[in-house]
Each structure stands twice: as C-alpha cells, then as structure tokens.
C-alpha cells in the first residue's frame, strides 16, 4: 500500500476517532442532562412527598383532633346519660313516694271525713226539730263540702296511680242496690242545698247482683253526678237512669249491657268540646273552673276507668240544653255467680228525696271501733234509726261485753284496731258455739282489696268500706236484723 493510501486510511481513522469522541461527548452531555433532569425530578418528587407527608400529617392531626372531640362528646353524652338515668331512678323513687304519700294521706283523711259526713247528715235530718232552716242549710253545706273533699282526694289519688300505671281493676259480684243507694245518700243533701231536683230511676228488669269493680263504678257515677250538680242551675234537675241496653260487638253478635245514664238540665257542652273535656285538666272552657270549681281530673279518670271496665263513657249534649253522660258496661257485667237472697223488686223504682223506711224498734247492736269519733258518729246514726247501740273500744272489751250481754243481735266491727284487730276478735268469737251464728259486719278505711277476703275468711258475714254511706249501711243492717 502506498503512502497516499496510508494517509487516507489515517485520515479516515482520525475522522472516525473524532466522530467517536463527538458521539461520546454528546452521550456524556446527554447523560449529564438526563442526570440533571432526574435530579430535578427526584427533588420535585421529594418536595411532593414532603408536601404530601405534611398534608397527611395535618390531616392525621385533624382526624386525631376530631376523634378526641368525638371521644369527649361521647364521654359527655355517657355522663349525661348516666345522670339522666340517675335522675330517672330518683324521679321514679320520688314518684313512688308521692303515690305512697298520697295513699296514706287519703287513708288518713277518710277516717275523719267519715265521722264528719255521718254527723253532718244526722244533723241535717234535724230529727229533734231544734235547728233553724238556716242551720240545717249550713249543715248540708258542711256535708256537701266534706263529700267534695272526699271526691277530690280520690281523684288525686287515682291520677297519681294512673300516672304510675298502678290503676287497677278488681271485679266482683256486688249489689246493684248498694250503688244507687249510696249515690242517693251522697247527692240528696247536695240536691237540697243547690235546690236541684234529683231522681234515681231503676228500670224494672234489673238484676240484684252485677259483676264489676264496686269502687270504680261508684267513682265514675259520683263524678258524673257531681259534675251534673255543679253545672245545673237552681230549679233544674239531675237524673240517674239505670237500665239495660243492647250492646253491640260486631254485626253478628249482640247482647245486653248495663247503662248508667246521668242527665242534667244544666248549661250543656258545645259540640266542639265533647272530646276535649275527657282530657286531663280540661274543662269545656278555661274560665269554667273559676266559676264552677273542680280540678279537671274527673272526666279523664272516669273515661279511663270506664274503658278499664271494658265499657265506655259517652256524652250527648248541646249548649244550654243539658247533658247526658252514659256509662255503658259490657254484657259480662250482668253475669254473676251470687244467688239472689233478697226480694228483687220488679217494679220501676224511683228514688227521690223522701225515703220511707220503717225504723228499728230498739234492737241491740255492738259497735267496736278504737276511733271514738267514728264510734260516736256511727252510734248517733244507728240510734237515729231506732237501734240501741253499745260501744266497745277494743277487741278484748268487745269479747268481754259479749260474754255478759246475750241480747246483742248484730256486731259491727272495725278491722284495723291496735292489739287485737277485727279478724282476731272474729276468730275468738266464732270459736264459741253461742256466737257462731251472730251476724257480723266488718268495717275498714283501708282501700286494699285483699281486706275483704281476709274479713270473709275470718268469718265476717258482711263487709263495708269507710266512709260508709248511710243508706248502704242501713240496707245491709236491715238484711241481717229485721225491723
């Protein structure tokens, strides 16, 4: 190869080297720039990561804060809940105590009211004729006030029981006559005082016994009658009509229920108030209570009770045209197990002011009661009906007295007495042959239903609750000793 060729080759190799160097330089530069880019990217990424981390941290912080707030709220709520529960328990306790207290108060008030009412009604009769008509009127007012007081006590007691869900119903066979007699007793003086005519009308086909809650039935009717008198002006009239009526349960079945209808010729109730007057503390008009008085509890309780007896309480009235409240009791009320032992009067009975009953003729009765006011009131009452009344203050005294006086025809025994109670006295008495058949009527101021069972188990022939209604007591006495 010649020099020229070598030279050419050398030039070519040189060009190749330069080319290679240039490529290498370019590559290096490229790598440098790539590196720079990567660095930047890494930095940006780092920055982003930092930013994100900061964000996450702040989010986390916020979450922790809200979690803590929530926890605090939760604790607070728990605490509040706890306090509420404690409060509820406390309130329940207080409510229970209140009910208990009211029950006790009611019992304690009944006993003095019993003597007050009996004595007032005896005085009002004015047998000795030595009272002026003004005095008689005053005594009537005393009786009526006492009666109202009794009703208020019962209403308050019942409302507190209803609130506590303790309103109970005890159904038994009772004498229908007891109901209307006692109502007549209670409301005749009011009728005289208010100069409002009062009549009890019994339909001819009524049974002697009915099956219902004695106390509740009387309570409803007393309420209705008290209202009727309250809203009927002087010269008007109030009627209690007792009759049977078709009771409908569905279309296929119908039977007869017992209806007590209280009708007055009073101020009436506007149609739009017919429902609201059955609500607690409601009267037809807010001003009514100021003019006519009353707690506004009566009708609410009455309807509640009527429904508890599986019946209902309805109203028909127009303003200024009087009102008729109907207590409807279901057919089961007429199903009783007690057999009729007295004559059922099949006539239409209309009881009005004058009650003509034959007085007793000095039959001897022993009245045992540790409460002297009661003994006094009752003995005055019984004596005014022609009975000779002996008194005993304790069970032992009664037993001793009976040993020596064989002429006693009837024993009226208070149940709650210290040392020896009524049941104890009866046990001793029934253990002796000569006293085994002596009729005994047990009296008690207690409102407990078990008491009657206890009395009957101990050997009592009859049982009456204080305050006793004169007519009912006399009716019961009459069924054991004849005039």
């Amino acid at each position, binding site marked *: 190869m010649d020099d020229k060729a070598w030279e*050419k080759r050398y030039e*070519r190799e040189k*060009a190749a080297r330069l*080319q*290679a160097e240039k*490529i290498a330089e370019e590559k290096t530069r490229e790598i440098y720039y790539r590196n720079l880019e990567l660095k930047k990217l890494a930095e940006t990424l780092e920055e982003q990561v930092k930013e994100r981390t900061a964000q996450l941290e702040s989010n986390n912080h916020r979450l922790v804060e809200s979690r803590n707030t929530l926890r605090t709220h939760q604790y607070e709520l728990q605490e509040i809940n706890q306090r509420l529960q404690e409060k509820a328990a406390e309130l329940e306790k207080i409510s229970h105590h209140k009910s208990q207290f009211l029950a006790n108060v009611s019992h304690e008030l009944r006993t003095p009211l019993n003597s007050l009412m009996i004595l007032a009604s005896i005085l009002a009769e004015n047998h000795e004729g030595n009272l002026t008509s003004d005095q008689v009127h005053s005594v009537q007012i005393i009786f009526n006030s006492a009666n109202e007081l009794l009703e208020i006590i019962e209403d308050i007691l019942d409302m507190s029981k209803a609130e506590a869900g303790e309103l109970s119903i005890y159904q038994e066979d009772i004498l229908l006559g007891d109901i209307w007699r006692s109502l007549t007793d209670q409301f005749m003086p009011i009728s005289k005082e208010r100069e409002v005519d009062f009549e009890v009308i019994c339909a001819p086909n009524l049974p002697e016994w009915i099956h219902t809650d004695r106390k509740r039935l009387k309570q409803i009717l007393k309420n209705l009658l008290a209202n009727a008198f309250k809203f009927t002006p002087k010269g008007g009239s109030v009627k209690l009509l007792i009759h049977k009526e078709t009771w409908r349960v569905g279309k296929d079945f119908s039977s007869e229920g017992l209806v007590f209808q209280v009708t007055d010729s009073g101020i009436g109730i506007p149609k739009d108030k017919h429902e609201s007057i059955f609500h607690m503390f409601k009267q037809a008009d807010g001003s009514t209570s100021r003019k006519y008085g009353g707690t506004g509890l009566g009708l609410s309780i009455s309807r509640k009770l009527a429904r508890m007896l599986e019946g209902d309480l309805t109203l028909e009235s127009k303003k200024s045209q009087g009102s008729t409240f109907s207590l409807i009791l279901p057919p089961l009320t007429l199903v009783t197990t007690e057999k009729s032992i007295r004559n059922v009067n099949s006539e239409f009975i209309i009881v009005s002011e004058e009650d003509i009953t034959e007085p007793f003729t000095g039959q001897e009765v022993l009245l045992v009661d540790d409460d002297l006011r009661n003994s006094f009131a009752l003995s005055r009452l019984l004596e005014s009906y022609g009975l000779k009344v002996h008194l005993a203050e304790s069970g032992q005294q009664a037993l001793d007295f009976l040993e020596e006086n064989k002429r006693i025809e009837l024993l009226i025994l208070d149940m709650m007495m210290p040392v020896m109670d009524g049941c104890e006295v009866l046990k001793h008495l029934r253990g002796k042959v000569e006293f085994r058949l002596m009729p005994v009527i047990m009296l008690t101021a207690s409102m407990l239903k078990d008491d009657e069972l206890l009395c009957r188990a101990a050997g009592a022939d009859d049982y009456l609750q204080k305050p006793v209604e004169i007519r009912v007591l006399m009716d019961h006495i009459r069924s054991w000793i004849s005039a």
Partner: protein
Amino acid sequence: MKGIIFTEFIEMVESRFSVEVAEQIIETADLPSGGSYTSLGTYSHHEVLKLVIKLSSVSGVNPADLQFVFGEYLFGRFNEVHPEFFDGVQGSFEFLSKVQEYIHVEVRKLYPEANPPTLTCKRIDERHMELHYASHRPFAPLAFGLIKGCGIHFGENLTIHYEPLPGTGDGTEARFHLTLEG
C-alpha cells in the same frame, strides 16, 4: 445499523483478505460516511450491502456467502466484546432461545436507537429447534452465519437447514431448521 457491524466487517476484511482489499472496497463503494466508522455510531445498512457487493466483485465470492462468513466471524467477536451474554449458557439452543428475550433487550439498553431483527425460537425436542428470522434488512444469510458461529462456539456438531422465505424482499425473512448431531 450499529457501527460495531461496520468496524467488525472492516476488521474481518482486513484479517481474512488484506488491508489493501479493505482500502479498495472502502475507496470504491461510494459510501456517504466516507468509510470512517466508529462502533459508537449508527450508519445506513446500505453501506454494508455496498461493501459486501464490492468485496464480492473483488474476491469473486458471492455476496450471500460473504454475509455467511461475516456472520460466523461476528459471532466469535461477540463472545470477545460481550462475554456477559454467555454467562452460564450451556449450548447453542439455549443461547439462541435467549437472543430475542434477553440479548436484544440488552442491546437496546446499550443502543437505544438499535432496531434488531425479530428472532423466534421453537424448541421441537432435545435435538431439534426451529428458528424464524424477520427483519427490514436483508441479512438472513448473516443470521445463518451467526447461527453457524454459535454452534462452533459451543463446540457442537450443528446441522443448519436454511430455508429462505419471501418476507419484504430477498433475505428479509428465513426459517432455520437446527439439528444437534452426535
């Protein structure tokens, strides 16, 4: 085409023929690059074809045979330049199987602008394999030589049946049937 192919080709011409022959073909081939090649550069594959054709006219050996010989030579050089490709490889079948999935990937890492052919291997059994070549360049004979060189490298008695396929032009596609003898 990668510069290493050119530099290696010139090397081969210089060693198998002579420096003069190399000078002569470079001088007469009318090359746009002027024939100054560096392994880092990239050049048109037409320059290789021109050089092959010139070498053919100088030596009287036909171009396909020259490609084959170059391939055989090139494989030996690969082993020297890139010994990492041969790490733990036991024989030609295993090596050829790795060309597409491993070696071409590595090539792209070194030369991002490289555009290697598609090489698909189908192992029939322990002794038989089918190899399919497809490229936009007409270098199937070169591939033939490379396979031959591979067999020699591993000291195997490898029979290669070369079946040219139409492809996009002469030498752009081929199927090789490989049999491991003995």
